[in-house]
């Protein structure tokens, strides 16, 4: 007669990975990887999110906002089209 082995799970730890889905690996402004954070932040993720422009270019939000604030005209630093946030 066969006997099934009994396993009792006493505890478990969930592990997950994440990454940003962007059309590039690095932020064009600070050159840090998108999966890392901008130089002013400590931890990547929700505290240092990415934003896309209507022109499809993508940056760390802190990098692009800092750049836009320093400019008289709000243009994408990559393509110079007027910068509009793409709320996708």
């Amino acid at each position: 007669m066969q006997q099934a082995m009994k396993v009792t799970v006493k505890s478990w730890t969930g592990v997950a990975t994440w990454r940003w889905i962007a059309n590039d690996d690095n932020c064009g402004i600070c050159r840090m990887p998108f999966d890392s954070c901008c130089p002013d932040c400590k931890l990547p993720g929700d505290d240092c999110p990415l934003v896309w422009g209507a022109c499809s270019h993508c940056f760390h939000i802190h990098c692009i906002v800092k750049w836009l604030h320093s400019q008289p005209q709000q243009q994408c630093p990559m393509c110079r089209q007027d910068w509009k946030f793409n709320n996708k």
Partner: protein
Amino acid sequence: MIKLFSLKQQKKDEEGSARAGGSQKKASAAQLRITKDLNELNLPKTCSTEFPDPDDLLNFKLIICPDEGFYRGGRFVFSFKVGPNYPHEPPKVKCETAVYHPNIDLEGNVCLNILREDWKPVLTVNSIVYGLQYLFLEPNPEDPLNKEAADELQSNRRLFEQHVQRAMRGGYVGASYFERCLK
């Protein structure tokens, strides 16, 4: 999730204590970025860099030795000063070699669009190197800093060429003295 938040808190605590101790030195955003720029630097064969203080990546020199055009055979030194706001502001670039050039004045100020109004943070040190190299290949009389040189380039190319040569050999062009800068 709870672990993540406690990690964050732990990190914050560490920072707090580090700041209190004042022992930890952190690279600034400008330093981080310039390190990347320099690592990815792909210099044309006419250019080289020099770091007077190897620990200070924010202040360095670029040497351009054009191998064609009006300035062939010359050796021109540019100083780069990278400010704390880099890459949101361009590096300050000055020409340390006296040169008879429409876009470089006798104080060493350089007129290159990407060093001023057309700077964007996606540009790198490499972009500036190529811009400067281009100035020597195609001096632009439309946007002059040395008006005399610009007018001459437009009205009498041969005379302009002679004056460039004279300045590079060392001597006077008009009332201005130029130190010899041939290789």
